[in-house]
């Protein structure tokens, strides 16, 4: 039931436009992440859905109902805050019971519901503790239980993991996805962490400068991004500038700065167009021939080795090799790099320059 729809949303603070032209539909039971760098307007967006701020233009619909003028407490949402915001004067149980009490649930439910959700986040044994006696990860779990116990079917998560340690964050991501899917909730999750977004979402909405850049499944965004910014933001990528030499039915040929010709997916470009070729590091392989380059750095990543090279076309490139590979690489070695024509994607070279087009802040 609680599908969410945003129609032509715009928000301005004085002269600053925080978001514009936002149209978005979130289906019932869908887990959608709004992803983007600091200041892209993602927090403003989720706050408008919750009713913490009113949009300057456009409408928010929750379960088909126009939310204009509906106060926060009547939107029936669960909201998890970046700074956690557990009530410091109440115990874990007291916090989780708050929703059922103020919603005037029957006595027996006020007793049972909070315990059920504390159990779900595996913190039943800590229900008597005050927030400052719990670790960061535990606090955020209590806050999730608190949001769920109020009976909301729509969960809004405002950077729920960014205050936590990297390792705790990793474990909690999977927890978050498991619990919300088990309960069949509709979730809108805001984050700047692309790895987090990839792991938890059914769909990612990528934002930049107050606008939606692209919206699709994690897989589609990673494998065939429609946009140069997306290609760089979602996972790392190598970007090579060149000129289209030829477009064939099964591939495109691109001439790099040094005259080397490399392959990419077929495209609609024409001979002579200035393009940027994007190729993921894990898709680049050393070979006997291909783009010549010199190794400038080798980083041990644990389960793989990442090698940074300076190519003859004067591009800095990354590629990965397995830790169990026999060949030993050293800084200064020459390697030739190839990739499958299916994994290289072409984009028009942006007029403002590649660096500006992928800028993160």
């Amino acid at each position, binding site marked *: 039931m609680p599908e969410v729809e945003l129609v032509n949303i715009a928000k301005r603070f004085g002269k600053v436009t925080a978001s514009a032209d936002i149209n978005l539909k979130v289906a019932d039971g869908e887990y959608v992440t709004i992803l983007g760098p600091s200041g892209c307007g993602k927090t403003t967006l989720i706050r408008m859905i919750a009713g913490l701020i009113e949009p300057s233009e456009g409408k928010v619909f929750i379960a088909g109902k126009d939310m204009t003028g509906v106060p926060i407490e009547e939107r029936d949402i669960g909201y998890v805050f970046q700074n956690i915001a557990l009530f410091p004067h109440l115990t874990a149980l007291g916090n989780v019971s708050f*929703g059922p009490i103020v919603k005037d649930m029957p006595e027996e439910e006020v007793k049972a519901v909070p315990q059920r959700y504390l159990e779900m986040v595996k913190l039943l044994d800590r229900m008597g503790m005050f927030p400052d006696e719990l670790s960061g990860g535990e606090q955020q779990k209590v806050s999730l239980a608190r949001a769920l116990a109020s009976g909301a079917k729509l969960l809004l998560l405002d950077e729920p993991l960014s205050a936590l340690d990297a390792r705790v964050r990793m474990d909690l991501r999977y927890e978050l996805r498991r619990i919300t899917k088990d309960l069949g909730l509709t979730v809108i999750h805001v984050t700047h962490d692309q790895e987090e977004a990839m792991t938890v979402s059914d769909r990612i909405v990528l934002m930049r400068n107050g606008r939606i850049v692209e919206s699709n499944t994690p897989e589609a965004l990673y494998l065939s991004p429609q946009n140069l910014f997306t290609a760089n933001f979602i996972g790392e990528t190598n970007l090579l500038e060149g000129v289209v030499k030829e477009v064939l039915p099964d591939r495109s040929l691109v001439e790099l700065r040094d005259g080397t010709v490399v392959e990419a997916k077929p495209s609609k470009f024409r001979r002579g167009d200035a393009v940027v070729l994007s190729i993921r590091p894990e898709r680049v392989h050393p070979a006997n021939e291909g783009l010549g380059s010199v190794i400038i750095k080798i980083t041990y990543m644990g389960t793989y080795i990442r090698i940074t090279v300076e190519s003859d076309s004067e591009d800095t490139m990354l590629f990965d090799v397995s830790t169990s590979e026999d060949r030993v690489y050293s800084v200064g070695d020459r390697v030739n790099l190839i990739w499958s024509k299916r994994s290289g994607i072409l984009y028009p070279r942006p007029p403002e320059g590649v660096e500006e087009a992928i800028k993160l802040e």
Partner: protein
Amino acid sequence: MKRMDWVVDFISRKGFRKGWTVFIVAFFLFFVVLPTLYVVTYAFTDWSAIETAVLSNPETLSTIVDSVVISFEIAAIVTVIDFLAGLPIAWILVRKEFRGKEFLDTLIDMPLAVPTAALGFSAAVFWVMNPDPVPFSLSVISSPFLLIILLHIVFSYPYMVRSLAAILEEIDDTYEVAGRTLGASRLTAARTITLPLFRAGLATGVILCFSRSMSETGGTMIALSTMANLGIGEAANFFTGSTLIGEWRSLVETDPTYAPSLAFVSILLIALALILLIILKLVIMKFHLPLRKVWPMQEKMLSRGIFPKMKDGGALLFLALIVLIPSFFIFTYVLFSDPASLDMGALSYALGYSFLVAGVVTVIDIALGIPFALHITKHRDRASSNVLDVLVNVPLIVPTAALGYSLFLFWGSIGTGGASFVVLILAHVAFTYPLVVRNVAGAVEEIDPSFEETARTLGARPIQSFHRVLYPLIKSSILAGAIMAFTRSLGETGATQAVLGRNALTAPVYIVSLVKADELYQAGLACIILIIVSYIFMLLLRYLTKKRKEAI
């Protein structure tokens, strides 16, 4: 250049820093705390005198007890009213955005700019039943008790609103928003989440209001004299603890037999103020609001429609009618009275004297208060700092008239009786020093210690890191503290009288004498001059604090 380096090195030496700290703390203990409480020793050294003059004299005893009881009753009633009327205003100031908020913010502080002596006169003219009322005055009050309550509300109300607003500002509003996303109405969320987190602010507000009301002397005396002059004779024999000290202090000069009674009432006020405030602090921190009970439907209804508007409207009406109009009614009075000539010579002498005292006092406060504030904030982990922190508040909560008498006895006993100006300065330092310390310590505590720490690792000596990094950040708070101390010293009556008796020549004391002589027009005019001068300082304060907010 070279010499400066030598100075920096010298004052950075461990030995020097230790010595300096000892000096600062010793100054505080010997010149501020000890004199304030010195009068208590009277009970040990001259108990027999108290016994004969007070305890075996039912008439004196009942006068003392009555006045002290009246003081407490008034302070309690005033505090409760301030809280009830102040909370909605504090809420509006912190949580709401609207046009004219700046203006409202300024209005709240306006009574603080008016010296209490002027306030007392202004409020009395506005409220007191008068056979020949001043145009636009209400002229309805005939009970001195009610009049003093109304007067005390005027100058204590801003303190309550400020304390509540300060703590409200610190309570992250995501708590309340979190409550509302869980389905609580505005009222439920405010009552069950924000209010319980509020206790510390409430304690501060209550203590400030209570002690302000207990302390106030000049305004109260003027209001009562005005009332008596307007034909309500009962006012002439109406005393609060503080005005009783003022009255007897002027009598003791000709009749030394008042000394034991005077000491006794001072001790009583100091002791009761301290005890009561300790209890209050404990009670408020233990007090639990009924959290478990929730009435969702009723509270939802009260969060809607006309009710919030009625609450806000009521609070604003209170602010206007009870606080602001009485504060500035004196202008109307002077406008509609028959002019009489004012002895400008005497007034300007009094004003000059007041300014001199206030200026010297402020310089001492700044020079010795800042290092002290730094000392207590830098060593929060030490028990001794916390003790000092609590002691700083003592001169703030002790009624200034009692404090003044205590200082008079203390410095008199050491044989400085002749140097009245010096004693007056020391008395004013005692009750203004905490204002500077509080302001500076509060500002320092808000500043991330990592600024100074980073400066140190970059090679700065402690004195350099204070001068280059911390000082620019707290400069405006230092100035705010200084201006508060200055205006407070300028408006003080009780302590001045208690120290100097009839010889006091400060502006507020001069105004009191004008009122007592029934020269009301002159008193009004003198008040206005004092208000204007103080107000200029107040504007300066607002300008400076605003600049600080922009800088951060």
